[in-house]
């Protein structure tokens, strides 16, 4: 059964406190925001533990050989959360850490949405919502045809899955029994215009993914140990794609930004705000 919004809130409050690595990664996000003077604040911060666990514990990758054939593929379909991806790519050595300071600069490789071909380790250019899952389905089919054991991870937003193309892709993944594919929903419950419950309610979300043929699990998207345990169980069911609904908090780690749609994106991040962010993440 799907979790009620009330139950989801219980999970949120039960999240363990952020450890030093989670705070450090968030400070790197702030470094990017400071460099660019702008960015999707809340949308990046809800993703940190998901990206951290993927890159620390789950994905088979080679930062010095980003095109390594047998790697796992991770598509950040909610491309606007790219700072969370960029900090992991910097942390793992795909790109130098200093690159974060160039976020959105004219000649930077790091734009406000990630581009494949420019940034080592980025599998697909995303930003227009609803594209990543189909591309992931194509990659999963390709892995099967090439008899590679690469796994494909596609991370979507919650507002993003308003898009009909996501559900076209979901039907297709299920039809092809793609158990090498996992969709991860960053369910922070706030889209750009406001709460998902008001703008376009997704509930019952677990039932939806199950109905589309995905073996589906829910997890506290800020609980590192739980996330590790969930990813370790993949695929959840043979011959079925997997869905992981991650209950997260938009703006997680910045008390003044948490659960506030006004922090989805900031077109201006002035120095005093940067100082407040760093202070909150000490």
């Amino acid at each position, binding site marked *: 059964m799907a979790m009620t919004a009330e139950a989801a809130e219980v999970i949120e409050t039960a999240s363990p406190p952020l450890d030093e690595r989670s705070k450090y990664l968030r400070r790197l996000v702030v470094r990017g925001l400071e460099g660019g003077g702008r960015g999707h604040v809340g949308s990046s911060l809800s993703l940190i533990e998901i990206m951290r666990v993927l890159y620390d514990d789950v994905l088979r990758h080679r930062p010095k050989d980003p095109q390594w054939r047998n790697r796992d593929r991770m598509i950040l379909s909610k491309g606007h959360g790219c700072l969370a991806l960029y900090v992991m790519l910097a942390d793992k050595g795909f790109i130098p850490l200093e690159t974060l300071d160039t976020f959105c600069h004219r000649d930077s490789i790091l734009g406000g949405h990630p*581009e*494949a*071909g420019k940034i080592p380790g980025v*599998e*697909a*250019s995303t*930003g*227009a919502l*609803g*594209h990543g*899952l*189909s*591309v*992931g*389905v*194509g*990659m*999963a*089919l*390709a*892995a*099967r*045809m*090439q008899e590679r054991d690469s796994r494909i991870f596609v991370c979507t937003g919650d507002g993003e899955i308003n898009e*009909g*193309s996501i559900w*076209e*892709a979901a*039907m*297709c993944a299920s*039809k092809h029994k793609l158990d090498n594919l996992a969709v991860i929903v960053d369910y922070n419950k706030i889209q750009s215009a406001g709460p998902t419950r008001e703008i376009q309610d997704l509930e019952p979300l677990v039932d939806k993914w199950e109905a589309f043929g995905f073996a589906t699990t829910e997890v506290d998207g800020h609980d590192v140990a739980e996330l590790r345990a969930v990813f370790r169980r993949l695929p959840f069911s043979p011959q079925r794609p997997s869905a992981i609904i991650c209950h997260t908090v938009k703006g997680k780690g910045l008390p003044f930004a948490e659960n506030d749609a006004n922090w989805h994106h900031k077109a201006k991040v002035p120095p005093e705000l940067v100082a407040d962010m760093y202070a909150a993440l000490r």
Partner: protein
Amino acid sequence: MRNTCLNMVYELAKRDPRVVFIGSDLSPGLLAGMKQDYPNRWFMEGVTEANVIGIAAGMAKEGYVPYVNTIATFITRRCYEQVAIDLCLHDLPVRLIGNGGGLVYAPLGPTHLAIEDMTIMRALPNMAVVAVCDAPEMTRFMEGSLDWPSPIYIRLAKGGDLVVSRPENGFTFGKAIRMRKARGRDPVVLMATGVMTTNCLAAADLLGREGYDASVVHFHTVKPLDEEAVLEHADNARLVVTVEEGVAIGGFGSAVTDLLVEEMGQSLPRIIRLALPDAFPHKYGVQNDLLEIYGLMPNQIAATVSNALSKEEMVA
């Protein structure tokens, strides 16, 4: 032309393991041979055009060359953002085969009439646009289509199209073919794409009977446009006429005139663009009925040209 195109996908699949076919919801038994011989590389994914384009992109990222097929309006309009982002931004070698380019689906009405496909496809960076004139030319094009590094939109005509292309002319991507050479020094030049080349050849014959000497240049590749051929044939032309089965806005004729205006300045020849107007067709019938409404049948093309020339002569 459609059968030839799809049969060529099968032929290419036999020769090259990179070839994949993806359809949406097409005829039962389509490419049955390929399905039987290469079931892992034959996909029919239902009425999910956006998804189909994304899948093709994912496969192409992993080294495949997907040939995607559905009705032209749906492979262009319905999933335009996927085509733009997944294919063109990533610059991937995916081939989009659009059934029923132009007015082919006349009896089915405006939802199925691909009148602006060339316009919107050629507007996308990295996208090539091909509209061959008959089945043998389709074969020659498809033979070389595998290794083009970028996406290609392939506009199909009705099928059973009159064969006017000649093997000796070959097929070079992005190179126009002069199908008929005028003998005089300041000829009329008809520039066309797709099956309008066939109509132009017939129109040129009619004009010949009236004493007007016309060349016909066939642009099977609308983008990249063979600029050299446009400029060479426009030089000293008495009249340049572009003919296409698509809207005038941003189409083939627009590409030609953009170039001529920029390159020829004061020496610009007189130009007539024959194309579809800025309107959805309201009639049904068959393709030729609509072509007639829009003045694109051979006798109408010839009449437009001869009227223009006779007025010119009267002024002179």
